[in-house]
Structure formats: C-alpha cells, structure tokens
C-alpha cells in the first residue's frame, strides 16, 4: 500500500506529462487528482496503522552498491513519516482539486498537473526515505518541481527570475546538506538512518581541530544539515526566495511554499533528532535562527501590500516557530505546529487564491475592500484561517503555538527565554497583519473595482471547506502528539532526559499560557484601530516611525545587500574569469587548442587515404614490416 501511495502520484505525473493528448484536457486534470485522492485514502489508513504501532521498511531496489557502500531505494513507514504522508497527501489532494477550478483559464493545465503530481511524488520520496541519499533525491526533486512551478508562467520575466532565485538560494542550503551527508558518511560509514542513529553515541565525543579550535564532529554535522534545512525552509539569511516564489500560481504557493516543501527542513531536523540531541550548540543555533526568523518575517509582513507576499512572510515566520521548537528539543511540538500550520496556511493561501481569482489576478490589498458580500464563503474561510494563525482558542494554531511558546519558556535557558519573548512579539505582529488582510480585503470600503467579483466555483470551495474544518479541529485532534506521558511518536523522535522543555511546558505558569492569547487580541485590536476605525492614523504612524516603516517595507534591504555584496562581485569575477580565464587561457589551449590538434590529425589521416590501391598495399606492407622490425629488435635485444 505504501508503494502504491508513493507511486500513484508519479503515475499521474507521467500520464499527464507525457500523454496529455492521449488522456485529453479533462483527463490531464482529473486523473492526477483522482490518483492523489486514492493515495490520500491510503495515507489515512497508514496513519491509523502507524498510530497502532506499525513500522516497517520496504526495500524496492539497490541503488548504489560500491564496495561497502550500499544504498537502497526504500520506503520507510513509521510515525514521523506517516504524519508527513498524511499532511502531504491531504494538502496535495486538495490543491489538485482546487487547481481544477483555479487553472481553468490556463492553456497548460496538463503540464501544471504533471508538475504538481511530480512534486507530490518527490515529497513522498523525501519523507519515506530510510537513508540520507534518498532523502537528498527527494529534497532535490521537490526543489526542481518548485523551480518548475514558480516559473510555470515562463513568459513572465519576473516569474523566471523568481524561479532562478529560488533555485540558487536553495543550492546554498543544499551545499550544506551535501556536506553534512558527506560528513556523516565519513564518520559513520553508512547513510542508513538506523545505523547512523544507533551509532551516534559512539562518536559523540569525536572532534577535530580547526585553527586550534576543537570542533565536535557531531555539532558540525548538525550545523551543516541545518544549513540545508534553512535553505529549504526559508530561514533568515536564506529566506529571500520565498517571497519572490509567490510569482507562481497560487495553488503552488499553498502546496509547496506553505504546507509541504518548506516544512521539509523541520522534518529533517525532527528526523535527525537522534543526532541533534547530542549537539547542544547546534540546537542553540537552531533556536536563535528560528526565533529571529519568526520576528523578522512578521515584522516585514506588516507593511507589505501584496496579499500573497504577506502570507508568504507569515509562512516564513511560522517556520521560525517550528524551528525554535525543535531548537529547545520540543520536536513533537514543531511537528504538531507543522501539521496545524499546513491546514491553516493552505487555507489562507487558497482563500487568497480565491480572492485573486475572483478579482481577475489582482493581488494588491490596497485595491480591495468590502469583499465579504461578494465572497462570503471565502471570507469565512479566511477568518477561520486567520483565527487559527493568530492562535486563538479553540482554533488549531492555539494548541500548537501555545505549546511551542511554553516549551521555549520551560527550557529554562537564556536562548529559550529569548525565543519565548521574541515569539510573543511575533505573535502580536502575526495577529496584526492577519487582521490587516481581513480588514483591508473583506471589510471597510471598497477601494477598487470589485463589481465583477464573484464567488469561486465548487472545486475551489470544497478544499476551502475541508481545510477550514481542519483549521478548527486539527489542533484539538492532534493534541496527543505533544502528550509527554504517552509516546505518540513510537520512538522516532529522540529527546534526551536532560532536555525536558516539553515535559516542563505542561507545568508552565498560567500567565505563560495565556499571554499568547492576550498579545493576539492586542494585535487584532490594533489592526482594527488602524484599518477600520482611524484610517488616517496609519499614515501618521508611518511618518512618525518612518525608519522602522521603511526597514520593514524594504525587507531590511536583504536583497539589496546580497546584490551588492555577493551578486555583483561574483558577476564581476565571473566576467573576468570568462573573458580572460576561459576564453583567453582555457579555450585557447584547452578545447580550441585540442580541436585544432584533432583537426590537423584528422586532415593527416584523411590525406593518407589517397584512393590509390598501391598506396594501400604499400601501407599494409609498411605496417607489417614496422611491426615485425619492432618485434625483431626486441627479440634480439637490440632495443
């Protein structure tokens, strides 16, 4: 069943990708969707089985077999992967369904669905792998699909640029991941999860010295792996691609850049928890990066005007939450938030997509307003999503965000405390920008032409409804995930005994538990004041704190700094190397030189071929005599 689950999306991708004409336009849309639906049903069954304690590995084929190094194509089912399977398949299926409605006007549906299904397949390979190499295969596979889908409208210059940017930034992270994997192989002589995780304790004290500083191997491994995770999950420093990635079609943003691919980094950290647990400094780093990302992204989000970009930064910020949960060893809290976030963030994206669709591809929230009449269902969906995102009870986000903050507080470390307060502030901003969207899009006066706005078709509304239900109940249903008395994860997540943030979190004081709700309410209130009650006050604030405003609006100039510090020098270097080094030296003596030599030899051989038969006979004799003379001299020892 696991095999079917994984390969049905691939089948869908191949069918609609290679035989679009054969299965027709409708077929190219419905067949992948139905196949995904079947996979989704399987994933529910497998999740059920996994909860009952089932776990196994299916070996499909040997991939690499070189000396002692053996890598198999294998599908691993355990608690962690089954949760991911469920999340991925749910969102993927809904997005497929949604896309049928959303992409109805696009001429390249078959290609779109093929990419979507391919992405799903790659993601499934990633989560079900039982070794690092297959994980890397899936990792790159999702990266590739992300590239293809961001640049789906390849005629749009900005989409192409965004796709390339996403790909390149991810490469930086991937480099870290590759190095990490290499280092693991170097130290453990294996890339199989089980083998590696079992032998962690054996090498945890190994270290090597670099510039007289002793660096524990395991810290470095974790650090490198986390760099990979940072790239894929758009953490600060490597976050710049995510906002640009919104150039892709909205369902793509929902699937890849909100619910699944970007969470791969969190999954990686959770999967590698048996290694990370022995690397306290790396964990600290994870926490700091996560916390900084959460506040930074939330801060940038408040001033953005593109509805999708706001949600994208929100995603970034929520990923930061997940990471600092992992950083304080509350991996299960991170995974829990991953799941609830998948629901409400997909809901928000799909809702935003519905709005955009209704307004004929208008994305600027300043040109919207008062849409609740035209789009009642979407409006309700967005409200539910925002409530969940802000973490108000009893919506999903409440449970997961609460536990993360509590865990941060309960870790009783300086970094944990720092993360807690940062997290609170980010929660305030989160609530603020969420309601900014709601107020500016659905309430107040209309600022643009919305007369043609209409509610979206059923294929769009059904996923919205399902996700809304999920956004309401998934937190409550998923509570066992963070239950410390009963090991929900069946040992797939390792937490050392001295890292008891999660355990302590349940005994956090009442103010810690309530504070996220309070700050969220404050955030909503501010938003209400600024965008409904006193519109001119917004302007005043912008001018009064113009520096902060501009910082936020320009995303702290990350792109510009990168452009100036990295891109331009690199371009110059490349230019010099290309013109002087490549053309001047390598080409001249390398390819061009070799080509010239080859050409000369070829001319010589051609000129020998005179066409006269006596020349040929002569050549035969000369050959014969040359060979014989050579042997003759050898034989008599004259050479």
């Amino acid at each position, binding site marked *: 069943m696991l095999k079917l689950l994984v390969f049905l999306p691939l089948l869908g991708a191949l069918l609609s990708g290679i035989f679009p004409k054969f299965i027709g336009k409708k077929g190219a849309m419905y067949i992948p969707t139905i196949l995904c639906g079947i996979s989704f049903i399987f994933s529910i069954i497998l999740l059920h089985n996994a909860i009952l304690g089932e776990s196994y590995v299916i070996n499909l084929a040997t991939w690499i077999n070189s000396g002692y190094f053996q890598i198999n194509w294998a599908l691993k089912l355990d608690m962690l992967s089954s949760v991911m399977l469920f999340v991925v398949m749910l969102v993927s299926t809904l997005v497929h369904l949604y896309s049928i409605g959303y992409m109805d006007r696009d001429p390249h549906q078959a290609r779109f669905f093929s990419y979507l299904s391919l992405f799903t397949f790659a993601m499934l390979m990633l989560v079900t792998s039982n070794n690092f190499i297959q994980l890397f295969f899936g990792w790159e596979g999702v990266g590739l699909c992300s590239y293809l889908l961001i640049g789906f409208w390849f005629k749009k210059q900005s989409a192409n640029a965004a796709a390339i940017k996403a790909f390149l930034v991810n490469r930086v992270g991937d480099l870290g991941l590759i190095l990490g994997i290499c280092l693991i192989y170097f130290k453990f002589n294996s890339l199989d999860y089980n083998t590696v995780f079992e032998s962690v304790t054996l090498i945890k004290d190994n270290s090597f010295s670099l510039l007289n500083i002793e660096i524990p191997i395991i810290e470095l491994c974790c650090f490198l792996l986390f760099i990979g995770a940072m790239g894929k999950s758009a953490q600060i420093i490597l976050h710049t691609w995510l906002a640009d990635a919104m150039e892709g079609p909205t369902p793509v943003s929902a699937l890849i850049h909100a619910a699944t691919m970007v969470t791969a980094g969190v999954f990686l950290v959770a999967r590698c928890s048996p290694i990370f647990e022995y690397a306290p400094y790396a964990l600290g780093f994870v926490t700091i990066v996560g916390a900084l990302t959460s506040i930074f992204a939330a801060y940038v989000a408040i001033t953005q005007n593109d509805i999708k970009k706001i949600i994208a930064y929100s995603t970034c910020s929520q990923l930061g939450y997940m990471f600092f949960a992992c950083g304080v060893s509350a991996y299960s809290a991170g995974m829990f938030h991953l799941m609830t976030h998948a629901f409400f963030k997909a809901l928000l994206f799909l809702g935003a997509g519905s709005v955009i669709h209704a307004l004929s591809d208008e994305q600027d929230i300043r040109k919207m307003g008062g849409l609740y009449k035209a789009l009642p269902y979407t409006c309700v969906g967005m409200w539910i999503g925002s409530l969940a995102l802000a973490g108000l009870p009893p919506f999903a986000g409440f449970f997961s965000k609460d536990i993360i903050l509590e865990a941060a507080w309960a870790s009783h470390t300086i970094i944990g405390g720092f993360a807690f307060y940062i997290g609170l502030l980010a929660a305030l901003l989160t609530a603020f920008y969420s309601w900014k969207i709601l107020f500016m899009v659905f309430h107040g006066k209309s600022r643009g032409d919305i007369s043609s706005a209409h509610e979206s078709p059923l294929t769009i509304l059904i996923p919205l409804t399902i996700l809304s239900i999920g956004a309401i109940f998934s937190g409550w249903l998923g509570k066992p995930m963070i239950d410390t008395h009963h090991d929900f994860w069946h040992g797939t997540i390792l937490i050392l005994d001295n890292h008891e943030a999660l355990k302590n979190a349940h005994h956090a004081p009442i103010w810690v538990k309530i504070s996220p709700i309070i700050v969220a309410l404050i955030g909503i209130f501010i938003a209400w004041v600024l965008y409904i009650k006193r519109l001119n006050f917004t302007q005043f604030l912008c001018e009064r704190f113009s520096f902060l405003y501009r910082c936020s609006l320009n995303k702290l100039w990350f792109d510009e700094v990168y452009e100036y510090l990295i891109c331009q020098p690199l371009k110059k270097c490349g230019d010099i190397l290309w013109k002087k080094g490549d053309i001047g030296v390598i080409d001249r003596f390398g390819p061009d030189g070799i080509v010239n030599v*080859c*050409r000369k*030899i*070829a*001319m010589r*051989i*051609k000129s*020998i*071929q005179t*066409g006269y*038969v006596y*020349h*040929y*006979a002569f*050549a*035969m004799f*000369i*050959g*014969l005599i*040359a*060979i*014989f003379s*050579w*042997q*003759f001299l050898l*034989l*008599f020892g004259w050479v």
Partner: protein
Amino acid sequence: MNSLIDNSNLILALPEIFLALWLLIFIPLGVYSGGSLAVRQSYFSLFAVIGLLGTFLILLSGGYKATIAFNDLIVSDKLVVYMKSLVLVAGILIFSISERYRSLEKLFIFEYPVLVLFSILGMLIMISSNDFITLYMGLELQSLSLYVLAAMKKDSKNSSEAGLKYFILGAIASGFLLFGVSLIFGITGTTSFTTLATSFSNMSLNQPLLVFAIIMILSAMAFKISIAPFHMWTPDVYEGAPTSITAFFAVVPKIAAFAVLMRILFIAFYEISFIWQQILIVMSILSIFVGAFGALLQTSIKRLMAYSTISNVGYVLLSLSLATSIGLESSIIYITIYTVSTLGVFAFILSMEKEKVLLDKISSFSGLSKSHPFYALTFTILLLSLAGLPPLAGFFAKFYIFRSLIIGDMLWVAVIGILGSVVAAYYYLKIIKIMYLDDSEELLNINSNNYIKYVLGFCAFLVISFIFFADSLIEFCINISKAIVL
C-alpha cells in the same frame, strides 16, 4: 576408410551442409525462374531468408557440446554456436532492410542473395574451423563472394573500384595468411589449432621465425576486421559498395573474423600470448585513433561508419589482447552490442532517400527531427549508444572493455582507449546536432518499407533495454569465455 563420413561428423557440419545444399537448389531455381525479373526478387529474398532460418534452427538443435570433427578440421562449442547465431540473425535482418534499396539500385538479380548466402556459408565454415586450412577455405569463400558483391553495382564506377581494391588488397592479405601458416607448419608440423597448442607447450618459443609467422597471420586477420594499419581499404570499399552490402560488410564478416581470431589467439596461440599481446595492443590503439580522428572530417555517412567500424573493432581487439577470460568475455559482449547498434544505424541509412536516390551526405539529414521524428529519435539513440553514453548498451560494452583492461593491469591502455572514445563521441553527436538543430534544406521523403522501420525500432529498443537483460547476456558471455579459456 569411410569412417570419417559417419553421422557424428556430418551432424556437426549439418548447418553448413544444409546451407550449401540450399544454395545448390537456389542457383538452378534462380536461373530457370527468371533470375533478373524484378517481380520475382522478393521471392528469392524470401527463399534465402528461409534458408538462413533453416540453418539457424539446425544450428540451435545441435546443442552446445564441445566436439571436434572431420579429422580435427572443424569444431563446435558455445563460442561457435553463439557466433554463428549472431551471423545468421544479422544476415536475416540485413536481408530485410536491404530490399527497398535493391529495388532502387537495380540490384534485383537473384545472384545477390546467392552470393550473400555463399559468403555467410564461408563465415560459418570460418567460425567452426579448427585448422588453418579450414580457416583459409572459409575465408576465401567468404571473401570471394564479398569481392563480387562490392562490385555488384555495375553501372557505378565507385562500386567496381571498390570491388577491385578489395580484391587486390584481400589477395595480398590472403598471401600473408598463407605465408604465415606455411611457416607455422614448417616450424611445428601441424596446422590444427588444438595440435598447435600442445606442440607450442613443448618446444622452444624464442624463435624469430615464429614471431614472423604470427605477425603475418595476425596481419591477415587484421585486414579482415579492418584494424589499422591494414584498414586502408575500409573507407573506400564502404563508400563504393552498394549500401546494403556495406551494411553487410560492417557487421557480419567482422563477427566471423573475430570468432576465428578468438579461436586462433585463445586456443592455438594461447601458449605464446607473450608474442602477440604487445602487437595487438599497438594495432588496436592505432586503429582506435585512426577510427576516431579519421571520421572527424567526413561528410559521407558511409565513410564515417567505416571509421566508426575501425575504432570499434579496435576496442574489441584491445580486450582480446589481454589474453584473459575477462578480456574474451568483454569482447564478446562488445561484438554483440556493436552488431545491434550498427545494424540499426544501417537500417537508418538505408531508409534515407530522396527522389529514389539514397542520401549519403550527413548534412542532408538536417531537420529530420521535425519531418520524421521516429527516425531521428531511433537514430539518435543508436548513435548515443555507439558514442557510449549511459544507460545505453554501448556504454556497457565499452565499460566492460575498460573494466577488463583495468583488471588486467593495463590502466594506461584503458585511459588511451577512453580518450579515443571521447574523440569518437564528437562525430556521433555532430550527426545528432545536424538532425535536431540545423534547419532543413529540403524535406526528405522516406518511403521505407515497414521492415526497415521494425528493424530500426527493434535495434533501438534493444539498445535502450539492454540494461534490463544485461545480466543474462553477460552471464552467457562469461560462460562462453570460460569454456574457451580455463
């Protein structure tokens, strides 16, 4: 005295006897039923193919048991049966792809299939020979038919020239062979491979005359498989001969010559491998490079294929020169894959026609990917396989050659061989570039019959899917070579 002509002897030679009898029926049949009438030609071809099929079936029913018959003159074992099957199957396929070309080029005379069958008969005799005299007889029967076939296009000057050149140079090569064999007979008193092997093991081997004899024999064989510096005839004959005959030249005689060369090297001369090893290495490296560089500037696809053949046989000879079981095994694999790829390539060449004239200029394939995507795609696959790109069959062929070289401690030779294949990859890729990227000058009109299409598709399919049945073929080749070399 008549004990030689008993059943066991006859059974061993049954495929050859059957084919010879079939030919003896064929000739009068052809003469008395309108041998040069165009309408009858497909029946004649069919008749020839049935003869080959019958031979094939008889061959397969004979089994693989290693036996010697006719007073040590002929032998049968796994290598013989496998190589004969390869020859027969390739012969049948070439018949099926050359039909249309023959109709275009006025080659619709019944002597054509007759001579092809004769040469195949010669090859069968060659392959199963266990004596230099048998080898020579088979070789002459084969070559004589091929000389005539090369010159068959009587209204073409090139064709007559090709036939004459091939004849004269072939006669010189035969002279070499006979000279070498007579010296060997003088030294050892025998011409039988198996007896030679034993007589070498109890005599002093440090004799210049023996070296000379071996060089003579190897040169003659090198001529037959077009190894440099005895390759000179190849491009001219390939170009001049009728294309369907070129296809035959490129594939079938090479299999037979290699089969007998394997037997000479690994049975008769195995004890004295120290003499021939160096010689073969030098010759094969030379031909790899002549093949690679010679093809670079060719504009005619037939000449290009000639050079391609030269470099490919270089690889086979290179791994034979190892004188190990692994080398033998990888050369058998290489020959098999080479046969399939080259057959496919010639199926393609034979289907490229415009206004009833076969195209020969490589540049005339431009824009083929748009007008005839099937042909362009299959041809691309075959060329990529010849260039040795994974995961196609050609890659594995080269891979096993280089692997055997490295195992045999000839790393530098392997490196040189790889360099040669890099150069060779250029001209294969150039054709692909022309087909896919260049704009077409004029549209081609391909009227090929379905056989060509099937053969082309079949070869391309085999080349792609090799990876799936590689294990069984390699296992099989290992068995063959284990039976020859202990």
